[in-house]
């Protein structure tokens, strides 16, 4: 399995990683090798095998709906690259993502 430079560039955008021209070359080569390696799983028969996403069998873990102390605004913002004492500041975007 080999990836094209274009594939890698697309993945780079999805992953929000700027890749230079030479990064793209290296990454295309290395990812192709690694994807080729992990692709060997294809040979394993997994008919009727259910995926296992997690090693635990536990279920139904909840917490009570009881408020706990929050951080102070100063603590929340203490590591922010840019803030105005109230808000985190980021380069201009318009609107909420809406979590939809």
């Amino acid at each position, binding site marked *: 399995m080999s990836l094209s430079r274009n594939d890698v560039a*697309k993945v780079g*955008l*999805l992953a*929000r990683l700027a890749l230079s021209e030479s990064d793209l070359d290296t990454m295309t080569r290395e990812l192709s090798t690694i994807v080729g390696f992990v692709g060997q799983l294809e040979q394993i028969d997994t008919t009727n095998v259910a995926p296992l*996403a*997690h090693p*635990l069998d*536990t*279920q*139904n*873990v*909840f*917490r*009570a*709906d*009881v*408020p*706990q*102390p*929050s*951080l*102070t*605004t100063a603590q*929340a*913002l203490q590591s922010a690259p*840019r803030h*105005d004492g*109230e*808000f*985190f*500041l*980021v*380069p*201009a*975007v*318009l*609107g*909420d*993502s*809406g*979590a*939809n």
Partner: protein
Amino acid sequence: MTATLTAAVPFTTVIGLEVHVQLQTRTKLFCGCATTFGAAPNTQVCPTCLGLPGSLPVMNRTAFELAVRAALALGCKIAPFTKWDRKNYFYPDLPKGYQISQFDLPFSSQGALEVVDPKGALTRNVRITRVHLEEDAGKSMHDETAGTGDTRIDLNRAGTPLCEIVSEPDLRSPQEARAWLNELKLLLVYLGVSDCNMQEGSLRVDANVNLHIPCDGGRIAKTPIVEIKNMNSFRSVERALVYESARQYEEWQATKAEMGKTPKQTRGWDDPAGVTRAQRHKEESSDYRYFPEPDLVPVTVSEEWLAATREAMGDPPSVLREALAATWKIPPYDADVLVNQGRELVSYFEDLAGRVGEGKVASNWMQQDVLRTLNERGGSIDDFPVRPAAVADIIGRVAKGDFDTSRAREIFAEVLASGRTVDDVVASMGIAAVDDDELISLCRELLAANPRVVADVQGGKEQAAAGLIGQAKKKNPNVNPGKVRAMCLELIRQM
């Protein structure tokens, strides 16, 4: 009403809605931060909802239970096994870089909610595709006047529990969509699932809409589906859909473009301008790379748990309307008006009707006096100063003939204004029952002073006696007009 509107246009509007409601919990979905609306920015945040390194989510039991309650009320099937997934995308109001949501195994699916229009003939069953539980994002604020300035991020809302309710495209007009949303809101408020306050963002609606246009040869042309966002009231939903239907029809006439040939378009509703506008389409935005959230464990819902939830749930509005009409023998219209005002008002009415013993009388008082003044004053029925016992007292005295309905209204208004008891108000207004002796002497006086009326009545014009009532009221405001009339007629007969 809807039927005539849709009949007037040469297409059918096909609408599906996606509703996000904030669940009425004290804390966020995955951490103990409060969800109080209007707090100062970034004061209700902790490592978990800030997405700090090493932080972990733990599910809020109440949030899950409220979501199940909503799904049950919507007639959904509750999945015996459900899990959470990560929806990956970058946005500064989403500090983890992923939203914890549900992808392939939502906790419920396949429900329905009817649109009820008691005034018209229309009732439509709108199917619910799925209901799932997810976390909200924070708020991004951009000062557009500043042009290229920074965007400010407040993460107080990040991690707030949301229930996403997705309908099938079963709605057939903007009006119907609005009516359905009203019913949905009423249901969720009744069940205590959400306060559904759109101003505070606890209820948000996106609409998917396209047109089915009959063409020559019986073929139906389907216009491309458009998703409308940014509608901040049910009224704007209706307006946006009306606008969008017209826009799509115009576009179809010009381009004949049909569904499936272009990707789904997203348009934002500009309320002041009254138009929808195309939003920029991000090519890669649809690749959310969902995968199971490894920091949470799945939830299995037992039959016992479901039974207990059903038990604790209370009646939904549709059941309550029927029950109210049947129990108190009131018309469906009355039941609808009362139920649509919310559970607290229904309790008030039931208390009042129980005391009065006559549903229709109580219902009339509710609609003409209690509701009218409540709407004028604002506030909730629970804080309304005139309690059911007082209203029942007033109604009871009218029935006994102590005073008439218009006098009763004055008493009601005075009790409301002064906060005093009915007894107090009746006494201070000098309202005392007029005894029969007093009444007889008053009527004799009137007849003596009005020989013309006496003559008219004797001549067969009984209605002439009405002229005496105003005079009687002037002499003694407490007299019962009906009794005055009856007594005068009796005395004339005896002459």
